[in-house]
């Protein structure tokens, strides 16, 4: 085995490594006592296989247990591979939404952030986002990684990023407590702040969550303001159903470029919407494979579903900076062939349609 610090781990986003060769190099890096993180080196002792010899192909990632829950408790320092040396270039420690108990933590390193953003900037070019614009972000900041990606994207693809705080944990608490009106008031509070920025600054790109975008779309004055100034809207954070997407693209913001992403703290980034899709195509998200990969599986068997079929999304992150394989997400998606090699693309991320509770017993309605 060559040195664990294999150059295949440091390729720019647009040079595609052989996925299996890359994977084997990454296993060597993460599980070699000289370069691996304290977390994974400790964890490897309890595995019933040796990742350095037994993980040969992308499909083998399914052998890993899902360790995502352990990220609630591990020291952030223990997540950084030792191969980064004593002064790793860490951008920050970020946390999951924290809706189900304590938040999970990840460490974002500079090399990964740069690769992710360079790839995503190229995707925005393909969607017709103008370069050099000012961006306005109505996205979570603080402990949430999306805020960091927003700033970095605004700084590199655009000129300047204007931000507004959005605390998703508080919103989720309000909704869970049945305080829908308070959640609505919070959204109005965000829009009020956005209006000050939009009306006074030259904002060309808006980054926003679907639920806040829907609130914005309910304000005719803001829709007019956005249509006047904004050239491109990037949405993400939660799902956007295909009918709303159609309405935005055709009725509400007909002249504005529109691009979604499907992200997660646990993949240290997001997958971007495939460019060139029509309204009637499913909204396909391609991840930055082989670093971030998706599998769409039958939740009961964990076997992949056929292309075009619905299943639950399993995500894996394998890069020099971080390893989190085989993490079953709560989202359902349609399995779509990847355009980059290992793993799947996903489409139409959505909850299951329920329409109405059919088991209501008492009463006649």
């Amino acid at each position, binding site marked *: 085995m060559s040195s664990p610090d294999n150059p295949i781990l440091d390729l720019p986003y647009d040079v595609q490594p052989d996925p299996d060769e890359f994977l084997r190099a990454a296993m060597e890096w993460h599980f070699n006592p000289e370069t691996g993180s304290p977390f994974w080196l400790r964890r490897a002792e309890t595995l019933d296989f040796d990742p350095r010899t037994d993980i040969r192909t992308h499909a083998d990632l399914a052998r890993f247990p899902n360790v995502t829950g352990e990220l609630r408790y591990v020291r952030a320092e223990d997540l950084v591979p030792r191969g980064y040396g004593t002064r790793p270039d860490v951008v920050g420690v970020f946390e999951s939404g924290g809706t189900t108990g304590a938040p999970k933590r990840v460490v974002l390193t500079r090399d990964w952030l740069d690769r992710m953003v360079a790839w995503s900037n190229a995707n925005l070019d393909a969607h017709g986002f103008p370069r050099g614009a000012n961006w306005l972000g109505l996205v979570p900041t603080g402990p949430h990684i999306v805020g960091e990606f927003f700033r970095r994207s605004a700084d590199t693809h655009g000129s300047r990023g204007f931000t507004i705080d959005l605390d998703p944990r508080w919103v989720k608490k309000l909704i869970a407590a049945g305080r829908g009106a308070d959640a609505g008031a919070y959204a109005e509070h965000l829009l009020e702040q956005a209006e000050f920025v939009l009306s006074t600054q030259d904002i060309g790109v808006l980054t926003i969550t679907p639920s806040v975008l829907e609130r914005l*779309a309910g304000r005719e004055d803001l829709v007019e303001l956005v249509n006047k100034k904004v050239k491109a809207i990037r949405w993400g954070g939660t799902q956007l159903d295909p009918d709303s997407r159609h309405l935005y693209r055709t009725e509400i913001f007909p002249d504005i470029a529109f691009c979604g992403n499907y992200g997660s703290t646990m993949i240290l980034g997001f997958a971007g919407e495939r460019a060139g899709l029509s309204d009637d195509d499913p909204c396909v998200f391609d991840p930055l494979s082989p670093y971030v990969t998706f599998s769409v599986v039958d939740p009961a068997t964990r076997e992949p579903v056929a292309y075009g079929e619905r299943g639950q999304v399993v995500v894996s992150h394998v890069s020099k900076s971080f390893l989190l394989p085989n993490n079953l997400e709560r989202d359902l998606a349609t399995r779509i062939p990847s355009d980059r090699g290992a793993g799947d693309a996903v489409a139409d991320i959505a909850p299951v349609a329920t*329409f109405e509770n059919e088991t209501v017993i008492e*009463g*006649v*309605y």
Partner: protein
Amino acid sequence: MAVADLLNPGPGRGPGALPGTRPGTQAEPRPEARPAGQGDARPEDRPEARLGPVTGSRPQARSAAGAARRSAAGAGPDDEPLLVDALGPQGRFRARRRTTVTDVSGAPVAEIGLVPSLFVDRTVKALRRATPMGLDERIAAIRHAAELFATAELAGQDPAAYERTVARVGGVPLSVVRATTQNIRARLGRVHDSLAQARPAGVAEDWRSPLTRTGSAVWTRRAETFAVLAAGNHPGTHSLWPEALALGYRVAVRPSRREPFTPYRLITALREAGFGEDRIAFLPTDHAEADTLLRAADRSLVYGGEDVVRKYADNPRVLLQGPGRSKILITADTDWRDHLDTITASVAGHGGTGCVNTTTVLVEGDPAPLAEALAQRLAALPALPPEDEAAVLPVQSADTARAIEAHLLTRAAGTRAWLGGDGIARDLGDGSAVLTPAVHQLERADAPQAGVELPFPCVWVAPWSRADGIAPLRGSLVVGALTTDRHLLDELIAEPSIGNVHAGDHPTYWMGPGLPHDGYLAEFLMRSKTVIRD
């Protein structure tokens, strides 16, 4: 209403047990008897085989393909289901998100497009922007729509196909659906009478009335938009909300999955009759978007059970149509034997699925003889598929029927079963089951079962004494009072939690033209305002 009508509600016998359709209460002529055989359930006559192409589609990328799909239909039972689209401010909206509506056997009948909350919100905003038509125009359009509803081919369905679809999907007996078509026609044909009766005396309908020269109250809308979270138990519930349209409100209806066809047809008719696309909308949605609709609209009418009542009880913008828990009280001075037809009809009329059907009968004295006689009458009702001409009982999917049965058997523990004690789900062998009647005797008037309302002829018979007073009758949509005790009537009529009182030989489902069902809807939608002018 004789119980014989319930047993034989075939062609030519008139509408049968339906709100407002008793002989002598309906102003409109009875419908002509239909040709014999029209309702035969031949295999090629299955509802999904009769659904025609969607008509009136706006030119849309997908509608050509949809029309092609539909035009291939009509040949046999393997047809693709009907597409029921949302009807929004720019016409038909073919949502990409769909759900399948099945008939009682589980066979797919229609695909409904579910619109997102963005669409709901924009639709209500468009409704608010639309100017109402003048009163006379509105009334004329509703009358015209009522005729279209009852007679025209709408969205590819003629009335017979529509009625059969409602019977097969909702499990409502075909004769009941037919009668309801005529009832809706009659009620909407006289919608202005209802409004006129609901308007406080002395309040002018319009500020231009000469009464305002010297000062007068004028009737005005409290708001502009009205949402309905509709019921699916009985098509007759859709005869109420058009009053809001008549008052000038712009209306959005979210249908029930159990039966979306009646509002779809009625709203298609209203649009054709002149309300156009921005005054009345049809918005099938999932649960979450239903909340969006209530938030977006100024006022709402919501049908639902106890859970829904709890959820919206404190919302002054929501008018609730909760459990009916209608009851009959018979005092010792009245012999129930003289009224057995009326009591039986109250329990089982229009399939026994209505909030105005009797849930509980309270008898001064021994309830056993009445329970026995009721059980005997109800046991004679035939268990038939809903599209059968002679069907009188509701049908549900076998799974749902068994769930209702299990619930009944649990709740009925400790009571004396006169009918249905071994179960009420009669399997029809095609995945559906008839809900056959149940009669149980309770030991006390305040037994908890007395409030258990189920969507089929299910009645609790309990003893009542003067000492109980009217307490066990509280919280009832209708109380039928078979008594000569005028003091008791005073109390019942004064009781705020009782919706309507029918004293004497009138079934609990009786509704007269222009009379309130649960108060006048207009009480919720209108206010009086002083206007004086020179």
